[in-house]
């Protein structure tokens, strides 16, 4: 039987990790992720899990220990945020390139400087080309559900890629919510036992991970990673289907809200999607045909599927919680990628980018209503006067 508990995002993820009972967790504390591994370390100390918990001196070491343990055939998990993710940088690529199915929660937090511990998406967006699967979550329940699914996605033989589970620092990580915690045995059965094909500890079948790979083979191994990413989309959907059958909640590549008959829509991920849903309802009550698309899977980017869901619109606004400095119009990464997809697949819909919430700056329903009003104006005139604007910044 499921139980309903009052948990914040970190507590929900720690519960999922307790139920998954990974072989190894190597982690270093960093706000706002700390509560995940702190809570989990209590489970270790209390004997509720069999996990080998490795306390390390840095995030670079945390991910390195995860790489070693995963290559040894262990089911491995960790968590980080912001500068911690940045410090893992080199080893993020090693994990993905060595095809190690590590599951890591990254609680999205701004990068220094100036130093800031609050939410934006600069950290994981910076790591978007490292070869990890990126799954964004709106709330604590989604974080819990997604961590459970992430294990299955990462370890699928057609994928074997590490997965980042992402949600908003403090907003989701530290706000208490009603979270459904499934029966331990059901989660255990769902994630199953990890049976690695190649393990460093399998002495009868010795294997080398991560050897020198020069001009003659490196390119082929990168091409293999592309293939794994291609397979990942189907595996993500298959795992979501099985999750829905087992636990009742449905997940896809993204979620739409009042989008089918909308004329304009906002594309925004994570906790802000919840705020946007309230703005949609308010404007719908006033007769405005507005809708929402909440991306869940950012890597692999579901370009064609998103275009198919958005191409009937008269204007699309992307809300980015990060800036790709120096890119086209200094836009955000989500906008840049979606705008490219909309052009490539001939959607012909005017688009604009709305950068918001950097360093944890609040975003409130009235501001999202303002974004919708800008989009309704674009729909009416067919003209985009400002390609990128900044919601909530003081001039």
């Amino acid at each position, binding site marked *: 039987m499921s139980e309903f508990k009052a948990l914040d995002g970190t507590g929900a993820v720690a519960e999922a990790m307790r139920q998954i009972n990974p072989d190894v967790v190597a982690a270093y504390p960093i706000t706002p992720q700390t509560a995940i591994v702190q809570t989990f370390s209590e489970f270790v100390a209390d004997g509720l899990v069999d996990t080998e918990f490795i306390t390390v001196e840095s995030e670079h070491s945390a991910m390195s220990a995860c790489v070693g343990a995963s290559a040894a055939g262990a089911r491995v998990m960790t968590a980080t945020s912001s500068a911690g993710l940045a410090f893992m940088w080199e080893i993020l690529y090693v994990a993905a390139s060595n095809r190690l199915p590590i599951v890591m929660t990254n609680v999205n937090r701004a990068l220094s400087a100036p130093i800031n511990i609050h939410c934006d998406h600069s950290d994981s967006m910076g790591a978007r080309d490292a070869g990890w699967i990126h799954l964004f979550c709106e709330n604590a329940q989604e974080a819990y559900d997604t961590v459970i699914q992430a294990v299955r996605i990462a370890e699928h033989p057609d994928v074997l890629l590490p997965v980042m589970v992402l949600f908003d620092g403090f907003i989701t990580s530290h706000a208490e919510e009603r979270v459904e915690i499934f029966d331990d045995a059901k989660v255990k059965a769902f994630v199953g036992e990890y049976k690695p094909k*190649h393990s460093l500890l399998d002495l009868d*079948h010795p*294997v080398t991970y*991560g050897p020198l790979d020069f*001009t003659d*083979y*490196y390119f*082929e191994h990168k091409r*293999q990673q592309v*293939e794994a990413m291609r397979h990942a989309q189907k595996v993500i959907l298959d795992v979501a289907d099985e999750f829905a059958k087992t636990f009742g909640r449905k997940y896809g590549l993204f979620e739409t809200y009042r989008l089918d008959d909308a004329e304009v829509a906002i594309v925004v991920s994570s906790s802000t999607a919840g705020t946007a849903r309230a703005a949609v309802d308010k404007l719908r009550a006033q007769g405005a045909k507005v809708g929402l698309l909440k991306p869940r899977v950012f890597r692999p980017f579901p370009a064609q599927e998103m275009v198919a869901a958005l191409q009937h619109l008269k204007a699309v606004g992307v809300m980015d919680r990060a800036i790709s400095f120096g890119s086209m119009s200094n836009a955000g990464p989500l906008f840049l990628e979606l705008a490219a997809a909309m052009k490539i697949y001939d959607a012909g819909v005017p688009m604009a980018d709305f950068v918001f919430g950097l360093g944890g700056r609040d975003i409130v329903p009235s501001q999202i209503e303002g974004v919708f009003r800008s989009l309704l104006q674009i729909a009416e005139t067919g003209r985009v006067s400002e390609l990128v604007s900044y919601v909530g910044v003081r001039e």
Partner: protein
Amino acid sequence: MAKGWKDLPIGGMILEAGNSAQYNTGAWRAFRPVRDASRCTNCMFCWVFCPDSSIRVKDEKMVGFDLLHCKGCGICANVCPVKCIEMHDEAEFGGSMEMVDEPGRAGGAK
């Protein structure tokens, strides 16, 4: 012929012990050593100095180069006291990895 991405173990994993013998490091080579056998005195300087053990010797005679592993460093040509080894641009050979033991003659010692 090196394997394509569909036939290689993922992530560069090595699944077989001792398989470095199958790794043709000669594929990196930019310059190929070519020997004029008529002037060679079989002094074995090249055999001593070759860092990749790529000098073929049979019955105390230098018989050619292991071009599958020779990286083309040119040390053999440099140390040869009678200068009977010359380094040639790999492009002259059309990118082939054939065994050559003297100018113009393909198919040397295995």
